[in-house]
């Protein structure tokens, strides 16, 4: 054996060992081997059962929120500077035109125009651009750079909140990924009925406590009448949460909350020791607790409304000074109390979410798919190997060895790259088996041709590999190019297919060219003067 062949064999041996290590690690027992295998070969939700959800962040909500804040602040500033105005309003953009948000200001008298401009410039000039509509009306639009920032911030915040919510379920290997500019992909292995999780992810869960100024009333109109048809600027009317079929009631509440969502430090479900019913306890931050203590101290015997997502849950009377604790009672049961606590802890979403796509696979279908994948894989391998052995005799063994190594490398790379194996991925592996031998066929046919042309065995092998090499590269490049586009455009499982196929093809260049060649060299080196080749 020449030293060249020896080095080649060592390289191949090293590759095999690295691959085997990547797939099963260094097991000391059979159980550990199975364990490592299961850990390293990550199955997608379509194989092990589970769900994947795609949701779209309704970006326009964030933009509207931004505009509302401006309107609120502008109203205060104008009042402070005694600049009169007719109206402050914003438009209502759709998802597609979210960044086309506008704030319209009308009825600023010409004499105050200078002061008005100064106020806007000082307060909002860094974020908004003001244009003059006519002598008394103005329009604010967002700077493009700010629009981008709002989008990016909203996405990050949504991802964070959703991650917190998902993590609190303690599901192993669940993931939250960004998809495009405004979509989030959530993968939940092992969850084949995601209804409850879905509801939770979507819940905004904004908890606020307000001072009650009147109510409950049977209707909004009735509430208005109690104030003689004019609602004071500092008040608002909110409906109660509908529970058990009773109609909603309406409360008049202060406009600014005593406690806001971000004032919460913790929330957890507890069982009431007397009634046995489930409640959600919440704890306020230090800062908010001080504020709350002052407020409750000053408002003993007044009522306080607990408002969740703009619906009044309850309006208990303040019996004593409260500092940092509160409780939400009258919940449906453990699940509801736990979900509410979870949503309060995770914080509120800066924009609402809309589900675009939901896919769930039960574990039995996953098990079926694995079985069917295995059967077709085995059938494919047997067919290919049989044909190669019949057609190329001893050289067929060479191709078979290369094929096995190809599959081994493919699986090992998947394991090292922590890629997820999906059903289309399995199809990709099986297809790779068929494509892998293509390279061998190209080489073997070339060698046969050279032999037919009268070349000696060693020279024929040399020429066969040499001439087929470029063709092999060409054929691989075309398939890899189309797989790249598939990867760019595909979602989940289809991406898995593209990845396995590309890895398989790269491994194939190594096995069909390098490994096969080495086996030939080794075989021919054994003969004194190579005169025959079983091909």
């Amino acid at each position, binding site marked *: 054996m020449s030293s060249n062949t020896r080095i080649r064999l060592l390289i191949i041996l090293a590759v095999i060992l690295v691959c085997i290590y990547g797939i099963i690690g260094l097991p000391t027992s059979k159980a550990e081997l199975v364990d490592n295998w299961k850990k390293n070969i990550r199955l997608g939700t379509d194989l092990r059962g589970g769900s994947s959800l795609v949701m779209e962040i309704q970006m326009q909500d964030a933009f509207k929120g931004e505009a509302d804040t401006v309107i609120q602040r502008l109203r205060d500033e104008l009042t402070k500077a005694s600049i009169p105005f007719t109206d402050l309003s914003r438009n209502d953009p759709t998802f597609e035109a979210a960044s086309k948000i506008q704030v319209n200001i009308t009825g600023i008298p010409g004499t105050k125009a200078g002061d008005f401009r100064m106020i806007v410039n000082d307060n909002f000039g860094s974020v908004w651009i003001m244009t003059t509509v006519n002598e008394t009306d103005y329009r604010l639009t967002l700077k493009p750079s700010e629009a981008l920032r709002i989008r990016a911030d909203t996405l990050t915040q949504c991802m964070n909140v959703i991650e917190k919510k998902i993590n609190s379920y303690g599901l192993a290997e669940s993931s939250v990924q960004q998809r495009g500019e405004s979509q989030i992909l959530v993968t939940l292995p092992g969850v084949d009925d995601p209804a409850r999780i879905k509801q939770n992810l979507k819940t905004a869960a904004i908890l606020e406590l307000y001072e009650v100024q009147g109510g409950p009333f049977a209707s909004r109109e009735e509430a208005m009448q109690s104030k003689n048809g004019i609602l004071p600027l500092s008040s608002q009317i909110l409906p109660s949460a509908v529970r058990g079929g009773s109609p909603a009631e309406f409360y008049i509440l202060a406009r600014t909350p005593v406690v806001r969502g971000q004032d919460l430090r913790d929330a957890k479900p507890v069982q009431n020791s007397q009634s046995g019913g489930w409640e959600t306890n919440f704890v306020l931050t230090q800062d908010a607790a001080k504020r709350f203590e002052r407020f409750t101290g000053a408002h003993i015997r007044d009522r306080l409304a607990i408002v969740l997502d703009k619906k009044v849950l309850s309006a208990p009377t303040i019996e004593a000074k409260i500092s940092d604790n509160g409780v939400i009672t009258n919940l449906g049961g453990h699940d509801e109390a736990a979900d509410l606590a979870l949503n309060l802890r995770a914080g509120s979403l800066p924009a609402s979410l809309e589900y675009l796509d939901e896919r769930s696979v039960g574990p039995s279908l996953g098990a079926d798919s694995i079985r069917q994948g295995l059967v077709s894989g085995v059938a494919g391998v047997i067919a290919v190997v049989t044909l190669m052995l019949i057609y190329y005799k001893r050289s067929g063994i060479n191709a078979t060895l290369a094929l096995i190594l190809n599959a081994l490398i493919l699986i090992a790379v998947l394991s090292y790259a922590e890629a997820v194996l999906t059903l289309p991925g399995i199809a990709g592996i099986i297809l790779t088996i068929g494509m892998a031998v293509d390279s061998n066929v190209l080489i073997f046919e070339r060698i046969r041709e050279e032999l037919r042309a009268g070349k000696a065995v060693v020279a024929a092998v040399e020429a066969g590999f040499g001439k087929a090499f470029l063709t092999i590269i060409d054929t691989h490049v075309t398939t890899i190019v189309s797989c790249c586009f598939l990867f760019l455009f595909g979602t989940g499982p289809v991406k898995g*297919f593209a990845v396995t196929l590309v890895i398989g093809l790269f491994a194939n260049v190594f096995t069909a060219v390098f490994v096969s060649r080495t086996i030939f060299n080794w075989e021919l080196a054994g003969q004194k003067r190579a005169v025959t080749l079983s091909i």
Partner: protein
Amino acid sequence: MELFKNTNFDFLGKKWPFIGLSLVLTAAGWISIATKGMRYGIDFKGGAEMKLRFAQEPPVQKIRSALENKLPGEISVQQISGKPEVLIETEIKDEKELNANRQLIDDTLRGMFDSSASGMIDVNNSSSTELAERLRGPLQQAGVPLSEQDLQDLCAAISAYRADHGGILSSADELAGVKGVTPKVIEVLKANTVLGPFTILSTDVVGPKIGAELRRQAVLATLYALGGMLVYIAFRFEWIYGVAAVVAVFHDTLITIGLFSLFNKPISLTVVAALLTLVGYSMNDTIVVFDRIRENLKMVRRESLENVINLSINQTLSRTVLTSGLTLLTALALWLFGGEVLNGFSFALVAGIIVGTYSSIFIASPILVFWQNFRGTGKPVVAAPPTRETASQRKAMRG
């Protein structure tokens, strides 16, 4: 063993019947698309799709009428041939219906089969965590000593057993052999759970927005891939080779899509994946033939291009048939044993590999000849690689 030893078929001479066949196939497919329309899977059209497996023969008619009463829009309920499985498809016009729609199907089915009316949990349709949640209390009361870990393991084992046995248990007694299941546990199961007559195998709900987005991306990806091929082949050979190869591959794609319409098979995401793979793979045969044409053009200069191409196809015939045949074998294995989910995918591969092999011989190669005839009759010039250009031109003038 050797097939096709020293063959000498006149492929190009017989090109017309084959080109005719291609045209007929393409036309048939596209007439079918024009009249019947393309059947899209829910990936592309949006909608809800639920697959159920029943313990007995499924009451398809009953399910259909129950759902039609509750759901708006088109509903299709079909039994998967030869299996006690049912595929329910509904349409979704707006993202907002997404949640409601799925829930409605779920509730209707549960209501129909009365599986959880008693308030008991249906083992055939619950995950191991749900099961653990519901059995914790009853098991404690029955005096089965279990730690929390034991309980989780027990429920996971029950779920795994169910998954391995088709997803449906018909009696709690079946579980007797499962690790951790004692007669006492079976008793508790019998008293506290029911076994519904069906299990939900999978649910896909896709909003129309994503559907439209995916449709656009699928077309773009295919076109980009074809463009990529064109550039690569043009770079490695000459631009007319690139055009010929891409026309051939495009032809394969058209025929395969046409076949989907003819056989009324839905186009799904995985089918597009198969089509894109074919775009790359069909190229392989074409490249092998083109490689040989280029090589032969360098050596035999006195022959006409037509003869050189014929010679090249004959020389590479055995590898063309063998490589395609081997890949076809694996695609066939997938088609036969890969199951329902991969059916469309493997069908596209099987059809595409066959069409692709034939098109590299009867579509791609004739285009080279057509081009040469178009440029000027009888000049055996076209193709040699750029470096050979001058030599062949010189020869052309002499000839």
